[in-house]
């Protein structure tokens, strides 16, 4: 019972609701150079960088699904894009199980870029033409840079949300 209550899914939903609300109220209303910074995506890639690619994919899926439910996108579209983004950021764990802040930020940058680029691609695949234009060359780096900057701050939240405990190194007993 305790595992269920403290399990990742029940943490993901309330954290996701707050993140989504911040995105809708704050970041959607204040674009930077006509680009809306993606707070939810930043949280997803931070969770991925903190917990690995499988946890990143699940965080992306759940938060993306909530994003879809609150907006006009087909249900599952943002879930797919953010799932891919979270998974990409999580590949930092193939290099080291406990990445330094700058390495996590670097993978968060790549993960966010992949996640944001996946949105118009998925829209084109699902028949919603018109968004895969030259504008994405500005949108993607700005969104990715924001995610990279936010990564060190959001990584502890992402770890807690996914139920990941930081590894403690212990000296081996002789």
């Amino acid at each position, binding site marked *: 019972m305790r595992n269920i209550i403290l399990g*990742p*899914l029940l943490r993901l939903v309330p954290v996701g*609701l*707050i993140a*989504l*609300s*911040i*995105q*809708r*109220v*704050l*970041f*959607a*209303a*204040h674009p930077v150079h*006509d*680009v*809306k910074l*993606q707070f*939810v995506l930043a949280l997803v890639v931070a969770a991925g960088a903190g917990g*690995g*690619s*499988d*946890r990143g*994919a*699940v965080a*992306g*899926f759940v938060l993306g*699904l*909530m*994003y879809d*439910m*609150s*907006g*006009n*996108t*087909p*249900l*599952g*579209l*943002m*879930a*797919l894009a953010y*799932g891919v983004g979270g*998974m990409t950021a999580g590949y930092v764990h193939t290099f080291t199980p406990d990445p330094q802040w700058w390495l996590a930020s670097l993978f968060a940058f790549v993960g966010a870029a992949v996640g*944001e680029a996946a*949105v*118009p691609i998925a*829209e084109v695949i*699902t*028949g*919603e*033409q*018109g*968004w895969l*234009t030259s*504008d994405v060359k500005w*949108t993607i780096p700005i*969104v990715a840079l924001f995610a990279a900057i936010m990564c060190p701050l959001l990584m502890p939240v992402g770890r807690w949300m996914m*139920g990941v405990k930081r590894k403690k190194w212990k000296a081996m007993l002789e």
Partner: protein
Amino acid sequence: MLSGLSRRRVLLLVVLTCVLLITLDKRGNPIIDQIRSVFARVVQPIDTATEAITLPLERAWNGISHYDDVQQQNEALWDQIQHMKGNDVEAKSAILEYRELLKLNQLTSKFQYKTVPATVVGASPSNFQNTVEINVGTRQGVDIGMPVTDGAGLIGRITKVFADRSIVLLITDPEYAVEAQVLSTPGSAATSTTTATEDTTLSGLPVSDLTSSTTSTSSTTTTTTQVLPPELTPITDPTQSTSTSTVTGSTTGPSAATTSSTLLEVVRETGSLEGQGAAKPMVLRFVDTTSSVTSVKIGAIVDTAGGNNSLAPQGIPIGTISRIERQTGSSSALVEVTPNASLQRLNFVAVVLYSPNQDAVGK
């Protein structure tokens, strides 16, 4: 949760679930609509709380960073208000004349449709969706496909509707398209000689009375250079050709009966207006590409064309033509239209209770 599954299986499960959900939602699923509706209710109080927390911080930041800009903008707006007060009287009289002309020509306008006022409560959080959320829904009679306007003109159409809120797809979204018409009066071509071809009975006065007491009569040959605003020009020829008509003005009484003769040349071109993305002008694709090259000019007003398959009734202003680019090797031209409405700063809007053809909604 994930310990029992390998990484590849988790990813595969995520991708397959997404594809399944997209397919179900695209085909239209009432359960998914219901879930969205419930989720909207759950999110609403959290949004309100977040807004309450962030608003003072936002205002403080804006106060520090934008104080000078706001002051300058305020002064400019005051100046604009003074100018608009003068224009207001003229505009009111023009609207009255416009309605009279519509009656005379037995035409309808958007004024026959009721509207539901609404407030914009949120914008799309995504960079790849151009939508806003408004605070009216099915309870207020709003339905999918209905056009939405603000004080300046058309802003979009309803794409999703819930009990007390709706999602509006803005006209700049690439998914948006509406039948539109260009109404323009050829600027310098208005100097010509014309004679009256029909009699018009005015204000209960017999035509004979008018002709005997006026200084300038409808049967007199007149030369005029006056070009009326497009709102006042009657739509003359549905076959998109240039035509000429004579309209006589109203009289104030038997002793002061006057008429004025005005030449109205209206160029009417119809086509499909499509969005290109946020902060970008829309593109107008004409039905008849050859005539558009010669007759359409920059600054011409574009409004909805109406028709059986249109998403909006006739006569809702959309914007003005801002750029025409002749295309080499083709008779057509790229015509860009800048919307009247400021889509980045929407606040109060109105949903026109016009139900378009269901085939058009599904397009």
